């Protein structure tokens, strides 16, 4: 009764369209990615209010920097979504090594862009394949397998980087900061990548297997999904994405450095959690991941504007993950 009284005209005049509009609104309200988008917009507006900076330039700088996180985060999302305790702690080390490799090959020359990027991605794919072998064939927990690979990569990078003076190609560097009118090209690339992987995850049989294996590995194996192989593919994908992100980040920041990937280890997991994907696997939300990445990036911007110390930035990022996990409804939670 009360429902009818509050909205009498609309229900009477156009019942069918209203019902669909209502269900759409309900779907938006219940969508797991909504909190990430709301948080992103809130922080965006807060930056405008506090710093008095232009809203357009804030968001356009934000989505450029968020793109590195989106690329790594998508790999991490696939690994987490295949379940079985899946997590990739090697991404930060892959990024750093790939950055050094690619910059040595590019050596400041635009002719070598393609080779540089391909080598960086291959390095990541190899690292991911080693992790996958340790986890799926040796039976290591994902945490240990990827961390062990990560530390091995860190040592390789430490020794190898001493003899390398790599410079990213200028064209690639320009590409990461270029704009068409108010639109940052690299930011749009990030959105395109996110959309492409959302389609892969939700509309292709491969993507459905990724989610199915994360929900019910036994049932998925009856459906011919081969859980071990699907899970292994997620680690390979994650390695490749981390390699790609490493090259772009090196190009954006002027060159490789030993600490290049460090902050992405936690952040790549944070954006998956913030975006509404299930941490226990089985459901990946890439739109939420994108919003989560922009949210985290803007949060760093806000912290820098308000001159918050580095300690607070760590605390906020860490507490945010724990808080979101604690508040989220987690129907598939295991362990």
């Amino acid at each position: 009764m009360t429902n009818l009284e509050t909205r009498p005209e609309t229900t009477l005049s156009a019942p069918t369209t209203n019902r669909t509009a209502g269900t759409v609104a309900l779907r938006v309200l219940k969508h797991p990615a909504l909190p990430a988008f709301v948080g992103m917009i809130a922080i965006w507006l807060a930056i405008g209010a506090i710093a008095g900076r232009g809203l357009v330039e804030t968001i356009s700088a934000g989505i450029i920097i968020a793109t590195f996180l989106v690329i790594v985060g998508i790999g991490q999302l696939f690994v987490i979504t295949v379940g079985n305790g899946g997590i990739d702690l090697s991404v930060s080390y892959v990024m750093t090594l790939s950055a050094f490799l690619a910059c040595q090959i590019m050596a400041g020359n635009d002719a070598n862009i393609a080779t540089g990027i391909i080598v960086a991605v291959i390095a990541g794919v190899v690292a991911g394949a080693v992790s996958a072998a340790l986890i799926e064939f040796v039976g290591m927990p994902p945490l240990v397998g990827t961390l062990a690979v990560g530390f091995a990569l860190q040592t390789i990078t430490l020794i190898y980087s001493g003899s390398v003076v790599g410079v990213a190609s200028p064209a690639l560097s320009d590409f990461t900061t270029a704009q068409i009118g108010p639109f940052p090209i690299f930011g749009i690339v990030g959105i395109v990548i996110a959309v492409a992987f959302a389609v892969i995850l939700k509309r292709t049989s491969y993507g459905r297997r990724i989610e199915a294996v994360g929900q019910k590995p036994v049932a998925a194996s009856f459906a011919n999904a081969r859980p071990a192989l699907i899970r292994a593919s997620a680690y390979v994908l994650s390695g490749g994405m981390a390699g790609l992100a490493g090259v772009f980040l090196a190009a954006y920041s002027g060159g490789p450095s030993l600490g290049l990937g460090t902050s992405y280890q936690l952040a790549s997991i944070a954006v998956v959690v913030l975006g509404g994907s299930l941490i226990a696997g089985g459901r990946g939300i890439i739109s939420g991941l994108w919003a989560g990445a922009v949210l985290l990036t803007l949060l760093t911007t806000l912290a820098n504007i308000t001159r918050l110390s580095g300690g607070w930035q760590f605390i906020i990022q860490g507490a945010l993950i724990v808080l979101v996990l604690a508040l989220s409804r987690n129907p598939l939670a295991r362990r």
Partner: protein
Amino acid sequence: MTTTQPVTEPPRSLGQAARERLGTAFGPWFLPTLAAVIIFGLMVALRPLVASPTGLNLVLAPLIPLIFAVLAQMFIIAAGDIDLGIGSFIGLANVVIAVIIPDSPVAGILFLIGMVVAYAAMGVLIAVRGLPSIVVTLGMSFVWLGVAILILPTPGGVVPEGIVSFVRFNPQVVPGVIIVLTVVTVAVALFLSRSKYGAVLRGSGSNAEGVRRAGWSVIRAKVSLYVLAAVFGLLSGLYLSGQTGGGDPYIAQSYVLLSIAGVIVGGGSFKGGEVSAVGAVAGALVVGLLGSLLQFIGVQSSFQAAAQGLVLVLVLVLRALVNWIQKVRRTL
């Protein structure tokens, strides 16, 4: 998580039974202890002075904080979880001891108690909500690190003289490190494998349903394990502070992987419940002494992290191989 398939046990042969008796006599601690003794023997062969009381102190003292960290990790792994925050937690304890305690001992001690309470709360969150410990402890590690950086942005501070002399306590008769090592190992081993509550704690990781049916609270057991981990994390921080004399938020970052490696090398399993205190201490000695041995041979320090990681991988690969061989033999 894992598929449970009913395994039909074939009739056991005489040899198999004998092997099993041998296995229980030696326990999971036997191999890591043997490995630690062999590595120590190699070090003595390279530098005979290591075997002298002073040499023993010099070699083993830096491993005491690591041993406490490994025991802390062991409690969490016993719960079936993994702690990625123990390194930052120890770093925070170190900073509190080097900065807050000299100014105001009461505030410092309250702070340390607060840290244990926070760890207990984290355990409640993980146990009650069924959250993945890896992500929660990784998130919290940034909170510990952030708080430590707020207290001490750059390495500094001075650890009180009393703590330094307590940690460096070294009577002439027996090296101090041997006393600490023995007391801690025996106490934890007796509590974990001989006391009633120790069995409940281990059971909470391996057989939660059994513990519940026996009338014990699984959640309380898990939280107890987190509290124990926090206390051992503080002890690790205490010894680290006394040895270095100053504070540094990043001081114990390498302990995250090393502590996991120590527990696993020491015969622990990620399945939870299957841990051994003696094994964990031996595992810590293997991982730690290996670092010293590499240094003796002249291996660059940048290789050491990889070498220690490699040992962990090797142990797990070997164990997988042994399991596989046993499975093949059982089906034959």
